């Protein structure tokens, strides 16, 4: 691993200022960054440690009720603490499930909420510095498009990049219309979660709308979401694997009719994939197999598979149908 300067910070303003410099990276749980630094993919000259800040300011690690019924997740809260939180389990089942189906017990004890939604793709061409990757080295090409692409995305792809966004939590947050609180060099701002990530287009190296020095401080879960929700994840082995396809859904069904629906897909998109098309296909319809299949068709209508990942189109449809079936049962 290359040498770097280690800078612990105990003040948000100082963190933003330090992080605004080139070649810096924030570290919280470290489960993505240390891994990628060891691979040579990430090569920061300065690593800014936010953990001192986390120990000093409890609001950054807390799960707290807001007066209007929303629930605030401190960005430096660990995945495990949020996953096991009683309020999260009771009111936001899909968030708790997405967290517990991700990574391993050890990783969940280390990784934070803010870091989780900013984790980098698992695309093997991105992780191997000997391969071409427009996300890692803009303009170098994409090894995956003409290469092995079984795990890559089928939604939101471009001619430059088909890397899958790996986070489970982010899929649940996209379905919920969560909001992201960001502290930057010019103050604080709030970003709708579905606008945090961007599709690759011609610039796969840009993955979010965050700017240098931005620190995610909290993520708010809205009140009044559909009562029944779930996160269904399909993968190559039963545990500790990234999704081949996943679905975060929430439904309100009364009198057999779907009154409200939230749908997002994981494992298939270049960003956490909210599907308003699927939601439109559900709302107002009877909660039955026909509506669920219509929603699945709508969600995957724009899918663009490559050589090895065509199976994901059907897998994602079935995953969504099963999630909708389970949550409306």
């Amino acid at each position, binding site marked *: *691993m*290359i*040498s*770097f*300067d*280690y800078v*612990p910070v105990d003040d948000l303003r100082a963190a933003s200022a330090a992080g605004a410099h080139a070649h810096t990276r924030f*570290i919280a*749980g*470290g*489960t993505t960054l*240390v*891994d990628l*630094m*060891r*691979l040579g993919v990430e090569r920061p*000259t*300065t*690593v800014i*440690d936010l*953990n001192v800040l986390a120990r000093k300011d409890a609001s950054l690690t807390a799960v707290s009720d807001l007066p209007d019924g929303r629930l605030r997740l401190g960005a430096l809260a660990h995945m*495990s603490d949020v996953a*096991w939180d009683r309020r999260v389990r009771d009111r936001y089942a899909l968030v708790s499930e997405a967290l517990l189906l991700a*990574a*391993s*017990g*050890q*990783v969940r*004890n*280390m990784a934070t909420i803010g870091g989780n939604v900013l984790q980098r793709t698992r695309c093997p061409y991105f992780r191997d510095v000997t391969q071409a990757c427009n996300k890692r080295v803009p303009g170098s090409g994409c090894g995956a498009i003409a290469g092995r692409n079984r795990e890559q995305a089928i939604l939101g792809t471009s001619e430059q990049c088909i890397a899958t966004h790996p986070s489970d939590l982010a899929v649940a947050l996209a379905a919920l219309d969560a909001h992201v609180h960001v502290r930057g060099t010019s103050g604080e701002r709030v970003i709708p979660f579905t606008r945090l990530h961007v599709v690759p287009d011609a610039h796969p190296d840009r993955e979010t709308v965050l700017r240098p020095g931005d620190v995610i401080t909290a993520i708010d879960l809205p009140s009044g979401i559909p009562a029944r929700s779930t996160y269904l994840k399909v993968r190559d082995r*039963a*545990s*500790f694997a990234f999704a081949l396809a996943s679905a975060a859904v929430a439904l309100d069904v009364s009198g057999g009719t779907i009154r409200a629906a939230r749908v997002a897909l994981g494992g298939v998109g270049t960003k956490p994939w909210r599907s308003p098309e699927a939601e439109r296909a559900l709302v107002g319809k009877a909660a039955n197999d026909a509506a669920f299949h219509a929603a699945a068709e709508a969600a995957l209508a724009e899918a663009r598979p490559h050589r090895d990942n065509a199976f994901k189109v059907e897998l994602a449809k079935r995953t969504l149908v099963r999630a909708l079936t389970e949550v409306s049962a």
Partner: protein
Amino acid sequence: MHDLRTAGATPPFPAAPPPPTAGDPAPDFELVANGTATRLSSLRGSPVVLVLHNPEWDPARREQIDAFNRLLASLPAAAEQRLITVGAAHPWLELEFDTSRVALPVIRDDDGSIAQAYGVHDTPAVFVIDERGIVRWTHMGRTPPREGDIIAALTSFAARDEPRSSSWNRREFIATVLGVAASLTISPRLAVAERIAAASTAPGAARAVTLNVNGRQLRLTLEPRVSLLDALREYAGLTGTKKGCDHGQCGACTVHVDGRRTLSCLTFAMMHEGQQITTIEGLAASAGTSGNTLHPMQQAFIKHDGFQCGYCTPGQIMSASAMIHEPWGAADSDVREAMSGNICRCGAYPGIVAAIQEVRANAADGEHGQ
């Protein structure tokens, strides 16, 4: 000091003498010991092991620690207290183990004069100096010497030196490590002092880090890039924690940080000052067991044959002993899910699950009984 960079073609140092060889008097030099300036020659009466090393040959690394552990094991206990205490201003690597304590005083050869006197430029070197100040054995090269060689050298001259042999034996020597951090220059024409100044301010330079491991304060000198795993294994000599994949995928490196199971490979050691780190070596003590009693999870792994080759076992046991405090369900399937971050290539999973379930059941019984 005048600026050596402006010295033109004139070499900054006079031509170095060749290294002393067996039979030569050891070049004298000044050092700070026990808080006061003294000279190597004042240590006459006891042999001295002098190690000159550059940063790539860190005396706190495992092979050095192991060597010194074995050296000290061959000494009476009192010898530990006879290690030179170097002035507080100097780096002082103190490492504690379950049964022994290794103190490695490091003297910085800031102006390069010691290295110069011993003809050392770019490779580590070891000199065994007898009680009369005569060099008896030398080793130079990238490969560290075997501790057996050093003991053999000490033994051989102890046996030959008739006048002193009755009052002195090889078990009574002062093991001194004199490090010249960053001063053994690759190019002797560069000003040593400037190189040190540059090194001490360079990004990523090593600095003192205090880690609380198994209830003991360990002062280590680490670069920021050193993972907690490497700090434990390579710097603190605690090799019970294993390196499997080094990418957070196998769980072999699992330790407890403030009681929570954590992958020591995916975090930097510097990030954990002030936290309680428990490794497999300290697990039993952390549970309040004393003497040679194993932690209940260790006992259960033995009873249920929860391992074959054993490489993943420390990580499995550290993960399991923390997992039982997490709010998982009671079923075997809950255990398998909770333990999915620990891979066992031998496939000892049935025994691992049985061991964990037994410890959970016993803990539940204990709670009911209270």
